[in-house]
């Protein structure tokens, strides 16, 4: 599974949306289920899956699929 697919899977499972619906406009402001709690789950899960540490300062701004992609340099 590519990293991009992995990221999409994380978003889809946590936000309970369809993987195929994830695109450049998928963000905190647009997706109802993307609340601050799920945001934290996303960040923690990315840390776990990609074995990285995201500072809380940075996590605050990583509120969309494109920004997360950029973080993972995909």
């Amino acid at each position, binding site marked *: 599974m590519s990293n991009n697919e992995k990221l999409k*899977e*994380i978003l889809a*499972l*946590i936000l*309970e949306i369809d993987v195929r619906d994830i695109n450049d406009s998928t963000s905190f*402001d647009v997706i*109802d289920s993307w*609340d*601050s*709690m799920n945001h*934290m*789950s996303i960040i*923690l*899960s990315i840390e*776990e*899956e990609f074995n990285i540490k995201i*500072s*809380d*300062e940075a996590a*605050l701004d990583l509120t969309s699929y494109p920004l997360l992609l950029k973080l993972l340099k995909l």
Partner: protein
Amino acid sequence: MVISGDKIMSELTFLKVKKRLNGNKLTNLPKVSISILRNITVDQVGDYIEYYGLQSNLDIECKFGGFDNIFQDIIALDSELVNQDSDVILVFYHLEMIYKQLSYLYPSFTLSERESATENIIKFVENCLFEIRNRSNAVVLWPSLELYVLSPLGIFDNHYNDGVNDFILDINRKLSSVFSKFLDCFLICSQSLVSRIGYNDFYDQERRISAASPYSLAALREYALESVKYIRALKGLSKKVIVCDCDNTIWGGVVGEDGVQNLQIGSGALGGIFEEFQHMLKTLSKNGIVLALCSKNNEEDVWEVFEKHHGMVLQKNDIAAYRINWKNKIENIKSIAEELNLGLDSFVFIDDSDFECQLVRDKLSNVTVIHMTKNPIEVINTINEKGFFDRYSLTNEDALRTKMYISDSFRRKSTSSVVDISSYIQSLEINVQVSYCNSSEISRVSQLTQKTNQFNLTGKRYTEQNIKEMYQSSNFRIFTLDYNDKFGSLGLVGVAIVEIDRVCNLPAIDTFLMSCRALGRSVEYVFLDTICRKIYDMGYSSIKGIHIPTKKNKQTEDFYIRNGFEVVIGNELSLELLLPMPKVECIEKNQFKSVSFKNFMEKNNV
């Protein structure tokens, strides 16, 4: 269910948990409702609990209480979290949230400050348990306070006998005696959970400070696993029977080949481990777990070992049932179940033979099979870790004794107990101070507009530069609210920005927000009241409120209306309301110890 001796937990990622939960949801499983009350952020624990529930064939639903609203959630009228339908109530009452930076402050505490800190915590917990028991029969699980693994006093913490860890241990001991007075209320030993995975993996120090989220995913997984052990016991899913093979299972070697005296039990490295394993089995049997043997052997050989080997811990009368013969084990286990009149789903089967293990797995899928590896220590650990045989009380008498104790001692205490929100808020001794934002607070104010989603009337986000410009402009007033109570200070938790329209001579509340740390205590009402009064004092006869619905601020939709504002104009995108002044006195204020408006720097150009 198939268990091997090796650790599988570390491979259980949050994503795997989510995948399992989103996968085929079985609806015919027994349902369990858990309410999680907390003063910290622990939301991911719910996913792990539901996951471990499914592993145990339980359909668990987790509901979360408000942040730092433990007592309010218990005593709320028609509480959704604490009622007759709740099966389990799990409470996270984290010390660092009660007394922030306790480890640093503690050394300067006076003796009486220490005592009152202890008293405050004990009283709070006792009141919570009492009020829960008045409303629900749910099992209560409450992790104890954790020690500081690294004390800021270093080795010196041990040098004077009232170091911070002694202080915590003392509270835990007192809590433990409080818990013993309440039926089905259990203090979970947090320190054991920390030890299982280690301090470094247990805590998320950065998020403890930034998000009030002190635990790592791994720690939440441990809390979930531990909680589900209690839930399994509650639902009668604990195992009741342990069926063991003999050769290379309860002793080392094969009796038919090696001879009785050459078996390894008691002496030697391996013998010591089998001795420990037998001690474990004996303890289980003493505590009501039925011990059975199922072995392909000559029966007299086996009993000869029991009689003649001096290393044997188990005695023949520890064995409730046995099938020592050359028949296949499926038939033997089935007939043990019939003899004991117990279901196979309450059976654990332990055997060193891959063949027998696989056979039982295939043919008797309800039986939990543990493969005895070369190292029995792994099996001992597995049994302890999984908690197959966990029960609440060892005997019925234990339970009964506890019950009698409760009815006796707690009725008479009910008069001193806190019963409604209002008196609870009073007991917190809240001090609220509203003031104009000063220059050192600009950054915090901006941060709150960026971060606050739930209690934020307009959801407007402002950068530091934006706030600075408003601060310097005569058209804006930025109010801040500082909160403290008998447990300490929460700091700056409320922001209101009022824009004064010079043309209409009308002030409008552009931003009104409260950090969720301070919700559930009526602070928001007092804050609104205080700023309205201040605006009135400036000579304005009405004030405009604005509500802009966002995806996250539903709880604020009727805030202005409940405070006497009337709708002027609006649609689903935005609502404008007007409050004629003077505003009706806000009664919530009377519950606070003090509400003050402090004018650090009244602007000249009002």
